[in-house]
């Protein structure tokens, strides 16, 4: 498999397919009261059935976001994947919420020692995976999953992803993972498959507006501050009071809201820290990087809600190493036009990718 520098990994995510190995906490909740335990852990209505995946967050004791949470029912059991936590931390959170339930008959079992994830992302990820598992893989809807008995007992294919491109996670027995990876790598030669570093995937998530627990400065903030209120319900029987108090504290503190910023083409990355507009501090630049795809700085910031709107320009951050301040502009994610929006498994294949008149990935480019 090709080992490429980061800019080319970005290009493969946006135009081809990459392989990576995410390491979220993985826990299976079993027992007669499994639903009750998961309902107490998940701050969102647990309206989800086998084959679907519910996207929510793990909260800390103060109602701040501690991680990304996928809930996938498996008949009477629940598979939990939590990015930003390890197995022990997720088990501990299950124990904490379980202690609030009287006589709960449910058991949380860590899977990380015996199971692992092998993941693909990119506009042609469906095609590569289809060569391994059959063309019906392209019909799996986003945020759904299906068993893959041909990959081993209990194997599961989850259609998820945080890059805005087609994304698949294969949940596999660790003993068989190496053989399956070898098959993917062998097939992947025709797809110029490369391995992507976790940091590249996290940067792609930032470009697309996905929450990522490894983005600097986001953990512990309220769902309201992070624009993740769709993942919670404030009248949740157990987590509601803590969520509500977090929301009220956020409001009292001035309610800065997460927003996305971009710099000018070919300018360097600014220093993380205060953001100013009209010589007044309006927020803080939390994280960012020079995007090889867009050719400019892209970042995450907390800003006054009155100004945290797209197309607000004249926002300045200090230059790195004491250089002149750099101008940024607030933008709405996704910051690019994902190729996966236009790749249709019924019409397109990787081999002829350069012959299709797709829309440009960079906004503002010429239409086909």
């Amino acid at each position, binding site marked *: 498999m090709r080992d490429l520098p980061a800019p080319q990994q970005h290009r493969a995510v946006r135009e081809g397919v990459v392989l990576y190995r995410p390491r979220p906490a993985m826990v299976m909740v079993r027992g007669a009261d499994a639903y009750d335990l998961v309902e107490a852990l998940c701050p969102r209505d647990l309206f989800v059935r086998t084959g679907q995946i519910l996207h929510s967050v793990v909260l800390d004791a103060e109602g701040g976001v501690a991680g990304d949470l996928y809930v996938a029912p498996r008949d009477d059991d629940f598979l939990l994947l939590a990015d930003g936590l390890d197995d022990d931390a997720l088990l501990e959170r299950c124990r904490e919420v379980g202690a609030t339930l009287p006589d709960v008959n449910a058991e949380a079992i860590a899977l990380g020692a015996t199971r692992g994830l092998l993941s693909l992302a990119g506009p042609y990820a469906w095609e590569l995976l289809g060569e391994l598992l059959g063309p019906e893989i392209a019909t799996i809807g986003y945020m759904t999953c299906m068993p893959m008995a041909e990959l081993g007992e209990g194997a599961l294919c989850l259609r998820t992803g945080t890059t805005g491109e087609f994304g698949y996670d294969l949940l596999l027995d660790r003993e068989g993972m190496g053989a399956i990876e070898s098959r993917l790598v062998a097939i992947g030669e025709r797809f110029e498959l490369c391995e992507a570093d976790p940091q590249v995937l996290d940067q792609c998530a930032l470009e697309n507006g996905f929450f990522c627990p490894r983005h600097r400065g986001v953990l512990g903030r309220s769902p309201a501050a992070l624009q993740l209120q769709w993942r919670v319900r404030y009248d949740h029987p157990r987590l509601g009071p803590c969520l509500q108090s977090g929301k009220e504290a956020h409001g009292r503190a001035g309610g800065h*809201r997460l927003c996305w910023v971009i710099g000018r083409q070919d300018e360097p990355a600014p220093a993380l820290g205060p953001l100013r507009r009209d010589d007044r501090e309006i927020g803080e630049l939390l994280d960012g990087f020079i995007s090889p795809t867009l050719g400019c700085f892209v970042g995450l910031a907390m800003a006054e809600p009155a100004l945290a709107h797209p197309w607000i320009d004249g926002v300045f951050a200090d230059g790195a190493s004491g250089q002149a301040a750099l101008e940024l502009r607030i933008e709405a994610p996704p910051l690019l036009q994902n190729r996966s929006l236009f790749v249709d498994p019924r019409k397109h294949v990787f081999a002829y990718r350069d012959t299709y008149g797709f829309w440009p990935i960079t906004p503002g480019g010429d*239409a086909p």
Partner: protein
Amino acid sequence: MLQGAPLERYLARRRALLDSIRAVLVEDLRVELPPEQIDPDTPLFGTGLALDSIDAVDLVVAIERRTGVRLADDAMGRMGLRSVNMVVNYLLAAQEQTP
């Protein structure tokens, strides 16, 4: 750089359109969230509000009814439906092009 009265006008137009789209989502598409809980950068399809292809048709019709702007059935229209803020961006751009 947007400043002073032009900035205030821009923000007022943006907030008004944001409120309109939230009203469409809650009243026309029956999204089960209070309007103030629909954050501006909430995705509309797949994750986020998890609307489906039938909702997309209802959304386009309701937006046209409330704002007079028809989201084109092309790539630009498709990208304009990716989040609440992207819809607002599309509507603002369309209003600026209207004489």
